[in-house]
């Protein structure tokens, strides 16, 4: 059974596959992978056998991997030609999400650092 009907040029996001067994298996694989990644995340967060400063980065990587699992196995976003529109919209969304998050955190961290200690501000005002 082929996954992609050649007559179909576009597929709605989230539309299940066309065959009962393969679509049920897709959800079960997705559930298994998501549970596995969640379990690893909680284990990584509570263990002491890993290098401490790297744990936060590792957790973010695990979260991004789990989001990928959800997109592929639950929302059925594929790399096939019938999914081009869905993938392009997703790519644009991810771009904006990263711009907003990284841009805000970066700028606000610098502004916070450049504010300086309150006592220095007071001293500057006293000199005038």
């Amino acid at each position, binding site marked *: 059974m082929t996954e992609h009907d050649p007559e179909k*040029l576009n597929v*709605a996001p*989230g539309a299940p596959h066309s065959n009962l067994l393969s679509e049920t298996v897709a959800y079960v694989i*997705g559930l298994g992978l998501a549970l596995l990644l969640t379990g690893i995340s909680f284990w990584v967060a509570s263990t002491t056998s890993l290098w401490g400063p790297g744990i936060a980065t590792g957790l973010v990587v695990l979260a991004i991997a789990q989001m990928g699992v959800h*997109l592929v196995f639950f929302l059925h976003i594929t790399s096939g030609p019938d999914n*081009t529109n869905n993938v392009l919209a997703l790519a644009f*969304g991810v771009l904006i999400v990263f711009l907003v998050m990284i841009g805000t955190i970066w700028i606000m961290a610098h502004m916070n650092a450049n504010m300086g200690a309150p006592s220095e501000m007071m001293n500057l005002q006293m000199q005038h």
Partner: protein
Amino acid sequence: MTAGTEAPAIGLTHMSSEDTGLGHRGPESKSIVVPYGFWLFVLSDMVLFSALFASYATLVHATDGGPATSQLFHRDLVAVETIALLLSSFVCGLAMITAKRGNMMWTQAWLVLTGLFGLVFLSIELYEFASMVAEGAPPQRSAFLSAFFTLVGCHGAHVTCGLLWLGTMMAQIWTKGFKQHILRRLLCFSIFWHALDIIWVAIFTIVYLIGTLP
């Protein structure tokens, strides 16, 4: 959930030499266009959440002498919430499979289960909020707590709306049967529900797990 069975067209794959790629065949059928439009809404919703995540990350240390992340969050509760929402998302997928085949009994059963897991998630979240307020950590205590309640509360509000939508869909399937437009709405609901689980993955990692690291 199938597209129109007319001639293949639209540019990106060149199957027919007559195809100009300019959409001369006209727009896709409603069963494609409506979920695609809803997909765009869901992605813009994720942009909204990214702004809330950014403000949370900026304000997480602004506790104003009040309680900080590691004193407030309980990982075991969050683990139960996470598994409840994941199972809800999974069962919602099973409901989509049976709905496509027009099986009323199983579709309603899976949808009831979807709603029950959603309710488990929501009641644990409300319990957590109530106990935080009781412990002297309401939203107005510090900038960190304002950002926390905005971010997690916004997700909880989405889940609440999703549960209301789920009840509406169950009633519509029951009274109107598996008509095309009902199945379209059900597909949009499942996109919404899976997207909420994706956002929860970011919340439990960034807010709860990283917030309670030793």
